[in-house]
């Protein structure tokens, strides 16, 4: 950049520093590209780190510790006066976030990535404007992420979003969670653990409607005991602020009723940040739902503009964004790569956790696959018994003729950690024998994956016949 001018030429630009954008920037730099990273926030890390995955996991861990302490009775351990200091917990969570965000800043600096703060707007297929600065680039990666969906106009906007809930400003006595998907359930359980009476209202007939029913049922059974009220097939009609909370009007099967809650948490999904980017000045095509259309190389319809993560088509998951970021960066550097992954793991940090990858049972049926399912309940597993957590199951979905593994689903403690083996198996094109013949350490929860594969192969030894 020549001083005194407001114009800059750079080889590559990345817009957004979330798990897609900063990873893409680092990979580009590692491959020898000159990189400019544009972030409108003061901190790096995007939704995932600043107001999503990371702070929520910090809170969930704390709550699970408290739950464990309160339920340690059966192990002969009793605690008295388990107290939560909300300020201290908030400090812990903020500390985790700022440490990681600072870590990204250090990585970017050491990699020689130039950073710029501001809102980026395309002025053409090879040019951007950031706060009056013109930037010309050869290739650009859009990684602007997504924003929370808001309730329709007319409904009071002072209710909480998931970002608000993560700030842990207060613990309301009663909390209504609007949306029984993974964000609503995770945060609802956090507040229940911290002392709130939590109810959930969900438009679908079931909580966590995206998961296979047999997996979700195990979670729902345990979670329902902690929730005050679960209202499925129900819709919020109105939220009226009162002097001590909100009066919420809810409809269920043509029946309307009103409840009072101290706070309402709205967790009804997210929408891609594809507007206000000046994309109309490029050839980039925005498709259904505001997602930027991309091909398997993460390329948009504009030859030198790429899009990754939440703003691009596909599930809104940090790990999908990171992988896409690497693909886009490598494609820009001339490598022959594609986003051709067969298993994007889905992970839900409820208690118990749920995870799955590859085909779900329902999706397999929709696609007309012949499938074979092996289920192994944690009640038959030594480690699960030892830690007193038998509320879980692993299921392995395979193809009858070839024994190829098509999908893996897990519910239970540490399901989020256990799913990676399933993802590797599916990506590798593994068969049941590859899982059954691999030694899994004993006694661990990971044995359940091997056991479920054995059940699918008809050679299980730990379940009674019939």
């Amino acid at each position: 950049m020549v001083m005194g001018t407001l114009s800059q030429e750079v080889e590559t630009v990345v817009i957004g520093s979330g798990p897609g954008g900063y990873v893409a920037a680092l990979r580009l730099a590692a491959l020898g590209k000159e990189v400019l990273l544009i972030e409108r926030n003061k901190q790096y890390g995007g939704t995932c780190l600043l107001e999503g995955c990371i702070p929520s996991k910090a809170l969930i861990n704390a709550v699970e510790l408290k739950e464990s302490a309160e339920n340690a009775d059966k192990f002969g351990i009793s605690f008295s006066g388990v107290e939560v200091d909300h300020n201290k917990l908030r400090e812990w969570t903020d500390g985790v976030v700022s440490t990681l965000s600072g870590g990204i800043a250090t990585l970017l600096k050491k990699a020689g990535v130039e950073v710029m703060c501001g809102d980026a707007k395309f002025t053409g297929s090879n040019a951007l404007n950031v706060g009056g600065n013109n930037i010309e680039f050869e290739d650009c990666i859009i990684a602007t992420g997504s924003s929370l969906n808001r309730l329709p106009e007319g409904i009071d906007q002072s209710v909480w979003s998931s970002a608000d809930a993560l700030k842990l400003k207060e613990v309301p006595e009663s909390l209504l969670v609007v949306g029984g998907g993974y964000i609503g359930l995770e945060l609802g359980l956090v507040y229940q653990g911290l002392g709130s009476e939590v109810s959930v209202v969900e438009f679908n007939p079931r909580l966590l409607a995206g998961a296979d029913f047999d997996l979700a049922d195990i979670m729902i059974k345990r979670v329902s005991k902690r929730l005050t009220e679960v209202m499925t097939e129900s819709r919020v009609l109105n939220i009226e602020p009162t002097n001590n909370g909100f009066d919420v009007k809810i409809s269920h099967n043509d029946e309307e009723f009103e409840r009072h809650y101290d706070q309402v948490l709205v967790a009804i999904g997210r929408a891609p940040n594809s507007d206000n980017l000046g994309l109309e000045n490029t050839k980039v095509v925005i498709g259904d739902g505001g997602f930027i259309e991309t091909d398997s190389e993460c390329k948009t319809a504009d030859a030198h503009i790429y899009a990754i993560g939440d703003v691009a088509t596909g599930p809104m998951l940090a790990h999908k964004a990171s992988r896409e970021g690497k693909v886009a960066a490598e494609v820009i550097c001339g490598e022959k790569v594609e986003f051709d992954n067969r298993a994007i793991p889905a992970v839900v940090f409820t208690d118990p956790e749920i995870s799955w990858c590859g085909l779900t049972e329902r999706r397999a049926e929709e696609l007309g696959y012949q499938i074979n399912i092996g289920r192994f309940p944690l009640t038959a597993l030594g480690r699960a018994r030892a830690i007193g957590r038998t509320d879980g199951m692993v299921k392995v979905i395979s193809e009858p003729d070839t024994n190829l593994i098509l999908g893996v689903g897990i519910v239970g403690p540490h399901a989020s950690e256990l799913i990676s083996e399933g993802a590797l198996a599916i990506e590798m094109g593994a068969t049941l024998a590859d899982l059954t013949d691999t030694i899994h350490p004993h006694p661990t929860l990971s044995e359940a994956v091997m056991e479920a594969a054995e059940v699918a192969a008809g050679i299980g030894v730990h379940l009674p016949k019939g």
Partner: protein
Amino acid sequence: MFEFNLPDLGEGIHEGEILKWYIAVGDTIEEDAPLVEVETDKAAVTIPSPRGGKVVSLAGEVGEIIETGSVVAVIDDGSEGVVAVEKTEDPVKKRKKRKIPANSAIPGRPVPAAPSTRRLARELGVDINNLKGTGPGGRVMPDDVKMSVDGDVVELTPETNAASVASAIPFLDIEALPDYSLQGEVEVEPLRSIRRRVARKMTTSMILVPHVAHMDEADVTELEDFRKRAGAEHESRGGGKLTLLSFVIRAITAGLKEAPSFNASLDPLREELIYKKFYNIGFAADTGRGLVVPVINDTDKKSIGEISKELQQKAELARDGKLPLEEMQGGTFTITNVGPLGGTALIPTINYPEVAILGMGRVQEKPVVRNGEIVIRKMLPLTLAFDHRVSDGADAARFVSELIRWLSDPKQLLLDI
């Protein structure tokens, strides 16, 4: 307009080299008149035009490779409707990939393959979803990807190619050839068609099969006398020339019935021996363009006269490049008769996956000892090269001795066969 696609040229044949166009663009061609001559790995085939009309376009130059199913020619036969002539892809490709249909019943379903294998496929320009995997559950393995790329397309240097082979076989060291043009004048031509096919088959056979050669001589004095006498009459009745080879084929067939291990195949992947209960004898024929092996089927059900007649017909067709492919397939045993061109002894290479081959040298009058006296006899040198994985030396000795007994005594041949 009529679009003519290159028809199926026979089992396992996906492509052919254009040898000759019989017409040019703008010419008028009659229905069934010869259009193009195409040479496959196995033979040259003349393809007639299925329609008459004006030739609008032809696919490719002489020497180029054309895939079966792709458009060979567009002929204006006066028919209504414009057939899509424009193709986004040139049907003739010098560098082409062998396409095997995906085995998945679900459209759009990706084939199982490790991420590293998928990356390899992209780097070699192979659509992995068109491959059939040899791994468990149909998983596409790195070798499947490499092998799907034709020998002359793999983007590996001769050095890396040699290195990959050398790494598989200890001490095997395939060095890049020096540039001989620095030493003197050379002419370089690409290895193609029949020559390439022979090169592959012979290399496979020599590397895969532990060859043993068993040699002996047959006294064919009486057989030759009989053949001349009977042959003259046979010929005068219009039966054609009665050749020595047809007697050997008949005798070999009888021998194979008694020694099934020479009419077998060994499947090294399944570790199985396959004994064939049918007798299809191939004979090596020199065509000028290279070696081909026409096959005479069911030699156990044919007379020597019938075999002799078929031999002559097939040899002629093969020489002219007109023998249909299916008549060069399905052999169970091969005879190579280099005798008419000379040779006192030879060690033939087995026509894999067969397990034995008989080499015939030149019949020569030789002094031999009979009952303590030196007499002049007509001797036929014979070599049986066999697969030592399947048979042993003693089996071969018995097999060849029996063969010699028949060839030495035409009466025995008549009695036993």
